[in-house]
């Protein structure tokens, strides 16, 4: 993952190079954190007994796991938004 491909993906033109570097590194770090988190979660859900090879069932499960994780995050996000709109007092007690 090199910084030039990231910057062109982000559509950045002429930016302060130091700021750009910081942003790219932060993005890389966030991505790696996510990979670690997902590996841990999906290992637990999809790996029963480690076999000599990564079989197709486990692979399919990992694919599903990542996708369902994203779906679940989106679902919870929507749910919280709904809740905040109807009961604004709860969002205050939660945000301590």
């Amino acid at each position, binding site marked *: 993952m090199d910084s030039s491909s990231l910057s062109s993906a982000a559509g950045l033109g002429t930016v302060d190079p130091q700021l750009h570097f910081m942003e790219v590194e932060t993005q890389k770090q966030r991505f790696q954190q996510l990979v670690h988190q997902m590996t841990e979660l999906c290992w637990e859900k999809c790996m029963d007994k480690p076999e000599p090879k990564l079989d197709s069932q486990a692979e399919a499960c990992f694919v599903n796991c990542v996708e369902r994780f994203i779906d679940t995050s989106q679902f919870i996000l929507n749910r*919280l938004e709904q809740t905040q709109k109807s009961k604004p007092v709860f969002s205050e007690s939660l945000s301590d």
Partner: protein
Amino acid sequence: MADLAEADEADLQRLVAAEQQKAQFTAQVHHFMELCWDKCVEKPGNRLDSRTENCLSSCVDRFIDTTFAITSRFAQIVQKGGQ
């Protein structure tokens, strides 16, 4: 020049407050994810089925209810203790 600086500072404060709110909300979503993923998703399938969705909705709602119940109870205890 002083008016310009004031306006800029107000804008900056608004921006910071907005970013803080966003960060808080994102942290909340992460928190709920940690709680509810384990409880509601057993083996990840092809899509989020309705059982899982209901469980996730319940998970979020019940956690909020629980927070509220515990907060109220503590408030009661503190009030009684003060008398």
